[in-house]
């Protein structure tokens, strides 16, 4: 029997249904959670099934609602707060970073904050400067938060359930361009532990570390490199905090080469953290300077003419790998196949959001 394949969005919905079924303390809240569009299909039907006191809408009040959700968690509930864009959650940074992240520690371990704050990272079709910020590295900076950023449907469901069952605040990040991607997802309850990296493809010549959507591009890059006889190892860093340093270090000790592909910016970001870990703990293993494939150091432009040059693709990863191997650059790496529109998550997409 072939394993069951469903989309990432469906996997999230199943994860929610499983958690809601198993634990009456779990509830979902957020702008548009029960609406007809179902939060990109990730909450469709849940209110009908579990009721309006467990799956609910909220006022347009991200900051206050975050604190309210925290208070309910202190008082026995296990909430999941949902934001259709990470950018909207930025209104609540005191509650997330200075409150949720700190309460367990600063009250001497007496209180627990079992909340999940879910944020979608937008991309393409003019999402532009204010609907596409990939600020996962901010959250990874903060002790007391856990940060999950699954790249596959399997991990989306398993990590979501793990996040809901965790007694700490978890920032759960989903890239909008992963929602339609399908993969094997077991039925029923299972968890993928927070804090572990995933070996997405074994290899011996170079380590490619990738975050979120960039895992897809990295796997594409690895497939292309394989045709040239280069065996790339791809690591899916689905957990940003706690960070599984061991997997990175073991891989780099084996390959001696490192390329990090992040869906966010390079400066002071996750890619810098990965390079720093290697510099501190495995610098003797590197046989070439490491490379980073990240967003250019500017806000996201809306015009497709600029956005097409903004988001790195598999070809950029291939080019970076060639550099670490001392191979000559091949301009065809960055060629775009005829008919491909770079500002769409898939060919069926026609806008508007």
């Amino acid at each position, binding site marked *: 029997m072939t394993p069951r394949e469903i989309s990432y969005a469906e996997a999230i919905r199943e994860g929610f249904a499983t958690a809601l079924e198993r634990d009456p303390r779990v509830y979902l809240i957020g*702008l*548009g959670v029960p*609406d*007809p*569009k179902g939060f990109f299909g990730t909450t469709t039907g849940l209110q009908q099934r579990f009721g309006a006191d467990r799956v*609910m*809408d*909220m*006022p*347009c*009040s*991200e*900051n*206050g609602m975050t604190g309210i959700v925290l208070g309910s968690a202190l008082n026995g509930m296990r909430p999941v707060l949902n934001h259709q864009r990470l*950018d*909207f959650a930025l*209104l609540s940074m005191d509650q997330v970073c200075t409150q949720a992240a700190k309460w367990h520690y600063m009250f001497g371990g007496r209180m627990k904050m079992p909340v999940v704050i879910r944020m979608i990272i937008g991309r393409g*079709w*003019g*999402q*532009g*400067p*204010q*609907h596409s910020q990939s600020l996962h590295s901010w959250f990874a900076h903060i002790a007391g938060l856990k940060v999950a950023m699954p790249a596959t449907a399997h991990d989306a469901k398993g990590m979501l359930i793990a996040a809901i069952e965790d007694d700490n605040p978890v920032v759960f990040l989903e890239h909008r361009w992963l929602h339609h991607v399908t993969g094997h997802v077991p039925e029923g309850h299972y968890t993928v532990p927070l804090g572990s990296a995933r070996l997405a493809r074994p290899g011996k010549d170079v380590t490619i570390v990738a975050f979120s959507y960039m895992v897809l591009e990295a796997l594409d890059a690895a497939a292309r490199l394989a045709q040239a006889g280069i065996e790339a190892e791809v690591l899916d860093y689905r957990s940003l905090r706690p960070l599984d340093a061991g997997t990175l270090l073991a891989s780099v000790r084996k390959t001696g080469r490192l390329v990090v592909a992040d869906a966010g910016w390079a400066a002071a970001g996750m890619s810098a953290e990965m390079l720093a870990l290697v510099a501190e703990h495995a610098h003797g293993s590197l046989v070439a300077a490491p490379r980073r494939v990240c967003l*250019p*150091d*500017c*806000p996201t*432009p*809306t*015009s*497709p*003419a*600029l956005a097409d*040059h*903004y988001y790195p693709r598999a070809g950029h990863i291939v080019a970076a790998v060639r550099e670490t191997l001392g191979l000559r650059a091949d301009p065809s790496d960055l060629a775009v196949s005829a008919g491909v529109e770079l*500002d769409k998550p898939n060919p069926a997409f*026609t*806008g*508007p*959001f």
Partner: protein
Amino acid sequence: MSSSVGADLGLRLYELMLRIRLVEEAIADRYAEQRMRCPVHLSIGQEAVAAGVGLALRADDLAMGGHRSHAHYLAKGGDLRAMIAEMHGRESGCCRGRGGSMHLVDLAAGFLGAVPIVGSTIPIAVGLAFGEHLQKRDRVAVAFMGEAATEEGVFHESANFASLHRLPVVFVCENNLYSVYSPLSVRQPAHCEVLDQARGHGLLAHPGDGNDPLAVHALMTDALAHARARRGPVFLELKTYRWREHCGPAFDNHIGYRTEAEFLAWKERDPIATFEKKLRAGGVFDEVRVARFIERQRAEIAAAFAAAQAAPFPAAATLMDHVYA
């Protein structure tokens, strides 16, 4: 509408509403071309607010808006070609293609920016008024906002500060009953009026019919006089209704968050058709003038699209431009 001044105002309000409608219908009609590759939030059905406010403003007054601000931009005198080019992602756009439909600006017209984070321009518009106050000038700032923005804490912080210093700002709140697909009933208590939130901060607050351009114009004229005389900020809650989907060109009454009957009842109160009837009844509707106006508008809109589609995209080499001043 017996005096010629009144007749002229009536026709100008009518024409401005019509211009906004024609522009937005053209955007809707042409969206499927996939050449405007960004989200679009249309104000079709809500034109009376923008028109009434726009014609009450002094040319040098200032305004800011949000995600649904094509109408506000046009009513403030924003350049049509620059807006259509912006939606097409061109270098000739009002943000040089960096922003798209949700980011509009026309400094010459005093439209100082629209952004799609709900509530975010409210404090910045209050800051414009603070700037007038500090420099002892008499321009008024307008913060266009949807009713959902009153749910954001930043609205309350901004209203408090504006009230504290009697800043010359008018909050123009379009209450179209929904935030995306969420009705007011899941967002605000049924026994409270949106308006009362402003009153709590000591703002002068008035309700109004957001589908009647003349009523909006009269309210706004008084609000501006009040604010300009430094008697304090004003909040107008104008009830109206969005006809199309929250984001995009289509109608969406079938998806289940509102009823076709509710839509039809509001459509019955179409701000443009209703006002045309009023103008006709008052004997001031000028067939020839309006026919010519429509013809000119259609030509101007077609030219704006043609110019946008022929305009160059921003060059890849300019990606890193404008990060710092």
